[in-house]
Every structure is written in C-alpha cells, then in structure tokens.
C-alpha cells in the first residue's frame, strides 16, 4: 500500500504550490501516472481521501490519468505501444523481437496541474 506515501507526497507538493501562488482553496488536482509504475488508481484515490478527510482539501477533485506504455524496439528501433497491456513479453509489431526494448513512456508519476483559488 505504497499509494499512501504517494498520496502524502502529492499533498505536500500541492500545499507548497498553493502557498507559492497565494492560493488557499484547492478545487482540483490532476495526476498523470505511467502504465509501468506500480500505481493502483483506486488505492491512490483511497489514500488521498483518507489524508484529506475533515481538512480544507476534503472537497477537492482528485483526477488520475494513465500514460500508456511506449517502447523503442531493441532490434529494429521502431517505436510502438504494446497491443496487450500487463504482459512481460511485448513483441515488436514490426519485427517480432521480444527482448530488450527501451521504455520511452510509462514510468512517469507527476502532478500535472492544480486548480485553486
């Protein structure tokens, strides 16, 4: 349940950003996370709820968007997104190579923006 730590880190950053911009009321926070991170959206939402209940952030909307995995083939260097998600062996659709692809996208975990007043 490392999502609790992640939710806490998100809150810490949100508080810093509110202060930096002279804002007090959080309306929405948008998180983007890569498909290849071990992030479970439902657990992250639960963590955020647990940490904000009965605080000024309680009514804020917590929005999550997944970034699909994208690879560059080890053999033919073509870029592709795997047809099936959640599989270890991701054959390149161009040449069939299964091993050693470079991950171009899917490992991100960042706060995109906040809406506040």
């Amino acid at each position: 349940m490392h999502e609790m730590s992640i939710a806490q880190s998100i809150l810490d950053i949100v508080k810093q950003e509110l202060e930096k911009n002279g804002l007090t009321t959080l309306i929405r926070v948008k998180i983007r996370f890569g498909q290849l991170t071990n992030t479970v959206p439902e657990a992250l939402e639960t963590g955020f709820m647990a940490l904000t209940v009965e605080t000024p952030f309680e009514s804020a909307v917590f929005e999550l968007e997944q970034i699909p995995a994208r690879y560059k083939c080890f053999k033919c260097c073509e870029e592709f997104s795997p047809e099936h998600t959640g599989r270890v062996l991701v054959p390149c659709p161009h040449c069939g190579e299964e091993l050693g692809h470079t991950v171009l996208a899917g490992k991100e975990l960042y706060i995109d923006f906040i809406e506040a007043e």
Partner: protein
Amino acid sequence: MKVSVIRNVLEANDRLAQELKDLFAARGILVLNLMSSPGAGKTSLLERTLADLAGEFKMAVIEGDLQTDNDARRVAATGAQAVQINTEGGCHLNSSMIMEALKQLDIEGLDILFIENVGNLVCPAEFDVGEDSKVTLLSVAEGDDKPEKYPLMFNLSEASLLNKVDLLPYVDFDMDRAKGFMRALNKDIIIFGVSCKTKEGLEGWYDWLRTKRAAKKN
C-alpha cells in the same frame, strides 16, 4: 485559477536519495538495495555473505521490517554492524528512513552497505534509497511466473538471485522460464542460481560483489 505544476510526485524522496548517493560516493561505499517477497532468503543471503567475506570487506546492514529486530540480531551475530528500522506497517523503506538509520551506523572505512528492504515484491521498487544497485531475490518455491507477475522490481534490478535451488527437485520451477521473463524485462540483468542453505552458487555472487566494490572504490 489553474496552475501548471509538472512536478515529480516522489521528488522529495529522490532528492534525499541523491544526498545519500553523494554521501556514499564521497566515502566510496558500495550500497545495495536488497528486495524480495517475505521469506525468499534476504537475511539468509546476508548471513552467508557477511560471514564468508568478513575477512575481505567491512560491511554493515540496515534492516527494514514492519516489526521486531529479529533480522538485525541474526545479522549482528556474524559480527557486522546492523541497524533495524521498524516501519510499523509501512510497506517499503524510503530515503528519509535511511538518513535516520545512518545516525546509528559508523560508516567510516565501510566497504559495503546492504539495505535489506521490507519483504514485498511490489512497493519497494518505487523508492530509491541512495543505492548503487537494486538486487532482487526470488526463491524457487515462489514459482517461476513471479517476474512476469511483478515486473517492475526485476526491470529495475541490476542483479537477481534465484535462491533455494536445493529445492528444485521438489517444486515445479522452470529456471529457464524464470530467467526468460527476467531477461525480457531487463536484457542486461545478471542472474545467479544459489542456495543459501547448501552454499551452492554463492561464489558467483561474491565475485560480482568484488567487482562492484572495486569499481566503486576507484
């Protein structure tokens, strides 16, 4: 109003991890983050390693567990320095815990610091703790499909030990299948088949430690 943030959620941990890396680099200490499910044999591997290489290296261990100091006591019995972190339910170690544990360690002249993470094949992979390399253990009793089911940890590990190979005659574990999954996730991963019980294969692991240690020193 809308404020563009674009900040890495784990930036606070990453910043502390970099501080730790700088601290270890300045002293030439090799730091390894040891990860696995509970019971795969991390502490047994450390007991063997600390005892067998005691004459070659000065080593210390930071132990992470939810509760008890059982592991720190096991490791300390070899004569090595050991500090126990109890996460009280936390599923992984992070850099601030390592910073705190270092206050109880004498790192002067240390060659290798092992960080034995909380037994968990998922969460510890996400949090850097200032290590040079992540090392993942998998015991053959757990099943050869685990790298496929828990890919991130194997993807990020520089080396992996398949432990308890003495049990291979009794379990349905296909070594080639497990290694195939590991290499699909990380084509450069170095794999050792070992038994901490019989000591089979440990010499390869020790040689890798020697090479890593020499590289860090220079």
